[in-house]
């Protein structure tokens, strides 16, 4: 089940606790800029295979560009 966080400080707290950060934007956008420590799984390629890179025992934070 997905929960939502709305502040930078919440994200930082979760990262300190071992959360994984996933950027779901395109490869080109990710290569240009992304949050420190993020991995890239473009939304169009997000499936069981690509998600296998993630550690199932740690929380996963996903983000895109903004609210849009």
């Amino acid at each position, binding site marked *: *089940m*997905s*929960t*939502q*966080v*709305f*502040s*930078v400080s919440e*994200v930082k707290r*979760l990262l300190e606790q071992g*959360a994984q950060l996933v*950027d779901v934007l395109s490869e080109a956008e*990710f*290569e*240009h*800029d*992304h*949050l*420190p*420590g*993020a991995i890239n799984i473009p939304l169009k390629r997000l499936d069981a295979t690509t998600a296998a890179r993630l550690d199932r025992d740690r*929380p*996963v*934070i*996903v*983000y*895109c*560009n*903004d*609210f849009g």
Partner: protein
Amino acid sequence: MIDYKPGKQAWYEDNEPREGKAVDEIWIGDVAGSDVPTCSPTETIGDIRRRIGGWDTCVVVDSKGVVLGLLRKKELDADPKATAEQVMRPGPKTFRPNVTLEELLKSMRDHEIQTNSLVTTAEGRLLGVISRADAEATLAHEQAAETRTDS
């Protein structure tokens, strides 16, 4: 799974670090100054002028810091009894902090902005200002440094 709704835009608005090719770029959020004077829409021009000293810019903001308008020299020279709201330039052009200096300068030239540009969040909250002179000087300095590195 946790959905970080505001996304990377909000991360950069908080001046947090980035990774990727963009670490070599200068973003206006990296260099904008946050000491620009602000005022409420109901403050009078006379009071504002006394308060801001030598500044030729004052940003009119609401109680949450969201930009409502801009006072430049012409507006600051208006009737001292007028309120900021009565004389301000409403809805000035604003820029997000992850715009590069090159993009900012191009836009300032295209829109004939000669003095300061406002840097805000996507919701319009004021983060700072950058002058055209500072933007041009910073970019020239950076390009000169790159030339020295290349040679």
